[in-house]
């Protein structure tokens, strides 16, 4: 770390870095301009009931930011994603512990359940949940939980299964207790995998929350706004909600990229 700082202080390096950053900013601006142009073209060729242009959309987001609607919508969606994320992680870790640490036969009996849950398209649950518990907050969170848990379980299981057997045997040979094995070897090793899983599943939780809102057809939340305003042909509101969701998603992806890279580095 200190080396990096020292290097950055030398004037030549500073200039090169500034140039690099400047180039990236230009590149990003060019890309955004390209996308906005394409969007503008799309809006020009389509009926304005269905597609709005970028400027109107940004103005709508501005209005929502000013009157607080933006925060309300985002809060609803993020609350679902966060609740589902926390509960789903707990369920996933628990599942993996049961499958991974139980005697080998129990693990083999239960493991296909996790795989099936991982592979299954989660949205099939929506019509059934709708009839069963309605379209409130709980069924949407259930959907996020069902999406998050198998991913976390798979990562945790990978962690448990990749514990260094040689080291484990050495610890056993030196007389380590089960508790010591768990806290000194298994936990630190598996934590890395769990953290990686959590990081990668974070945007996924957000996506499932938005999708659940669209399918349940509620009136709040970003997905709910996309759906209900779409039914009313209010393209302005639809695109504004979509833009907010995209920005949040981009921020989450950025965090994922940063933390994920750091985790990968620390594991090596």
């Amino acid at each position: 770390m200190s080396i990096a700082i020292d290097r950055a202080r030398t004037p030549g390096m500073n200039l090169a870095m500034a140039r690099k950053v400047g180039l990236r900013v230009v590149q990003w601006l060019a890309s955004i301009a390209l996308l906005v142009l394409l969007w503008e073209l799309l809006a020009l060729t389509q009926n304005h009931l269905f597609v709005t242009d970028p400027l109107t959309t940004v103005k709508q987001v501005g209005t929502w930011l000013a009157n607080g609607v933006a925060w309300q919508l985002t809060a609803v969606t993020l609350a679902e994603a966060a609740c589902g994320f926390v509960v789903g992680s707990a369920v996933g870790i628990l599942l993996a512990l049961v499958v991974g640490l139980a005697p080998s036969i129990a693990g083999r009996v239960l493991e296909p359940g996790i795989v099936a849950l991982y592979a299954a398209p989660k949205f099939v649950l929506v019509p059934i949940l709708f009839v069963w518990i309605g379209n409130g907050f709980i069924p949407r969170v259930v959907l996020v939980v069902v999406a998050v848990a198998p991913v976390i379980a798979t990562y945790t299981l990978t962690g448990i299964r990749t514990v260094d057997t040689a080291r484990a045997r050495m610890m056993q040979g030196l007389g380590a207790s089960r508790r010591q094995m768990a806290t000194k070897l298994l936990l630190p090793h598996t934590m890395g995998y769990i953290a990686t899983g959590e990081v990668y599943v974070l945007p996924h939780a957000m996506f499932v929350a938005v999708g659940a809102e669209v399918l349940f057809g509620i009136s709040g939340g970003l997905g709910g706004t996309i759906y209900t305003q779409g039914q009313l042909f209010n393209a302005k509101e639809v695109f504004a909600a979509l833009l907010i969701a995209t920005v949040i998603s981009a921020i989450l992806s950025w965090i994922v990229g940063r933390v994920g890279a750091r985790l990968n580095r620390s594991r090596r």
Partner: protein
Amino acid sequence: MSQTSGTVPKPLGQPAARGRRQVSRKARKKDRDLLAVIGWRVLLVAIFCALWQLAPDGVVPESAVGRPSSVASSFWSLLKSGALPTALGSTLLSVVYAMIIGAVLGIALGIFSSMPVGRWLLGPAISLLYAIPKVGLIAVFVILLGVERSSHVALVVSAVLFVYFYAIRQGIEEANEDQLNALRGMGAGRLTVLRKLILPSAVPQLLGATRIALPLALTSEIFAELREPSIAGLGTLLADSSQSLNGAAASAVLIVTVLIAYGLDIVLNSRVKGFTELTGTGLQV
């Protein structure tokens, strides 16, 4: 030789060579284990079905999920009437179309973006497009492409494309530098390098991408069918059953969908070894 080999320490975790008798006993034990595993699985499913069958209607309403007995009979009647096979075929057709288009587009874009011009043009643009929650786009696709299969396919393509894009990018980055230089030194053109080195060495990444993309494609297709039930599919059948409060039929379709997804994943998984190596391509739609 034979004397010294006895003193070489065996690597840990690898069983020492054993006599034939012991090996066969081990194989027999494995067989017994497999039987026990299958037995336990059957038992667990049976217990689950019994609880489901006997649960009071107030807790597990018949109209939402049916009962195992009625689910079985609905499954049979859906199968006989041809509704289920048609729906399954239709859903899988959309998924196959979208997987092919998505893979080709994603790989092409990935290769283009690894060139200087492409990197300049596409890098940030792709990350921005990747961030759009695709579930919000279904209405836009329906406007552009009409109430048809193509709008479903477009939604699924918009989801799986990025998985292949990031996979091929990773493959290109990890291609062997020395081989690349050697090929170039011997005068290989860009196309030859691509065909001889980049694509073959990216096969593991692309297989891994397929294992991520396929569940994603199914999820997106089911989503599209639930939101825009324009063509018959598993999602449409499920939504119709649920709306007419026919929980048994809904559960039958749900179980079939999950089993199909599971079966496809198993087939793919037998070709892809690790799971952790695939995570770089993300999971988001």
